[in-house]
């Protein structure tokens, strides 16, 4: 593992020097995972592909700014998330704000989620209304607080909270529906 890290450092340094071969290596190493990140934030895979492409161009242009402090993957991921947020802002800034409406939470067990596939889950997340999807991802996957999310998304903290709640609600319902479908088959 240590050697891998050293290799990565070398690859990054070569990327800073603009070497095409190193860029290809870096892409190979991280593209699948970053595509996974982009897919979570996008409405469909076409949008995710666009974001991945844009994200990687940013990565290569700014790679000299990576100071080898903290994880490189985390740094890259942050770039992908930022690109996704930017894209969202461009596309959905007119999206209507929905009122807070906390649904009573049904009993939900992990077992159900185990039954559905990662691809299905991604599909369900992609089907979420764009802002719910963004907030849900930022909160759950990036571990951001509502304050941070409200800044990133240019919304109020209350909106962030309610969006998260709605996102959970919708997801739970959809997961259950899907689960039922699986069961009845």
């Amino acid at each position, binding site marked *: 593992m240590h050697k891998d890290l050293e*290799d990565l450092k070398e690859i990054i340094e070569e990327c800073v020097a603009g070497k095409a*071969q190193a860029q290809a290596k870096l892409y190979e190493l991280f593209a699948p995972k970053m595509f996974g990140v982009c897919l*979570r934030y996008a409405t469909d895979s076409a949008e995710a592909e666009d974001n991945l492409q844009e994200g990687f161009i940013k990565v290569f*242009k700014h790679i000299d700014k990576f100071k080898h402090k903290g994880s490189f993957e985390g740094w890259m991921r942050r770039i992908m998330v930022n690109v996704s947020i930017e894209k969202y802002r461009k596309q959905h800034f007119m999206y209507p704000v929905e009122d807070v409406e906390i649904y009573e939470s049904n009993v939900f067990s992990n077992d159900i989620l185990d039954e559905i596939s*990662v*691809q299905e889950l991604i599909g369900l997340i992609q089907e979420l209304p764009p802002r719910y999807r963004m907030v849900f991802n930022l909160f759950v996957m990036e571990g951001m607080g509502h304050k941070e999310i409200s800044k990133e998304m240019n919304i109020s903290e209350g909106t962030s909270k309610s969006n998260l709640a709605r996102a959970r609600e919708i997801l739970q319902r959809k997961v259950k529906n899907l689960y039922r479908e699986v069961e009845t088959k």
Partner: protein
Amino acid sequence: MKEIKNIDKAVKEKLEGFSVVPPPHIWENVQGQLAAGKRNKRIAFTRWIAAAAVVLLAMLAGWYFNNSTQPDSQTTAQQQTPGINTVVTPKTRSKGKEIQQKELIGENTTQTQSNKKEGNSGNSQKQITVLSTSNTVAKKSLYKKNLPPVRENQLLFAKINRKEIRFNTLTTEIFLEKHATAEPNEFTLTNEDKMLIAANVASKNTDKFENRRWKMGLNVSPGYSSQVVNHSESYAQNMSYSGETGNTNIGGGFAVQYKTGKRFSIESGVYYAQNGQKSAASMNLFASKNDVGSNYYSSNESVSMDAVSRVSTPTFSNTVNINNGTILMNGNAGIVALDATPKGAEITTNAETKSMIAPGTMVAEGEFSQVFDFIEIPLLLRFRILDTKFGIELVGGLNTGIVVGNNAYIDNSYGVQNVGSTQDISEINLSGAAGVGMSYALGKHISVAVEPRLNYYFNSINSNPEVDFRPYRIGIYTGVYYAF
């Protein structure tokens, strides 16, 4: 509340390591855009070079015409002219060629990507695209050298893929089918098409590179020139003055820097600089023509008067050889061929010598100087010590100095007269350069810099074995730089 936490946690666990190999055209697009970005920069750079060359030529032309209209009598020597154009233009042209070649090489490194099908884990639908790392087709040797790390990397990558496969076996095909429907369209495009599309996208997407590698600057460098000089004994015997001083002057030019790494950059450019020396007020014994008269030929009535006048007017005198109408004089920087007797100067011949060569003494009020104009092409390595808004750099390297002007002047009551030139001066000389640069960034692109730099000629610029004349110059290079 418990359930809410549960779904968050469950989703996070499930999606944390989620990864999908993206379709191959994305990497092609990324590369296309990166290459296009570089190309744009290069085009911009060649434009700058061209613009700078025009400015430089204009400067040189101005300098030349300014020089040739010097207030002088019929004895003005003009011989520094033809060198300028022939020396400067090939340099800039060849730079242009280099850039084009680089560009061509850049275009040759089109990347190939191969899709490999892997039937695995019982999932026949699964298509895993593996990106080939061997993407630099152009340079075989380079490719060979880098082969081992590539292999290692492929192994590493293969590991990752295997993980993915394991991870994805449970998943449905819905998602992958989505891809499958999207992909055929992509494959009808040829590689060139994709490159073209990518380049077009890139030209629209003119994101500026934060990392600016090129820097161009215009400099003026007020400075002080002097020299280290040694003469053979026989040469020195015919040199009767000894008080040499340096020469303040202004040089300048333009510089191009290229950042090779985080802290290192290389610099080249074209500079104009002057080196020279002055000899004046040196003769205690033969300080003025009146002195000579009094000491050699007549009574000493005027001696006391001259002693007074000597203080106020610097006077120059030296032994000269007159041979077939040419007056040769052992100057500090080498033998000076005088075109004619300068105004306000007298040449006293030794009447007792009967040989063809009639040595004499030239006496003139004023200062005598030998001045050399250089076009300098530096190759400098710069190391950045302090990399903030205010930067400090160490500079060192070599300088090719091409002598484009070689003149001897006498400055007396008749004005500055160009009286001849120094013989045996080598046209091309090598000097070392060292300095400390300080810069301050005014914005993203523009910075100002002050850089004291010492230029020292390793070898005598005079090929005459009797004379070892090595000029040096301390200049304060002050200029504006543009980074892009």
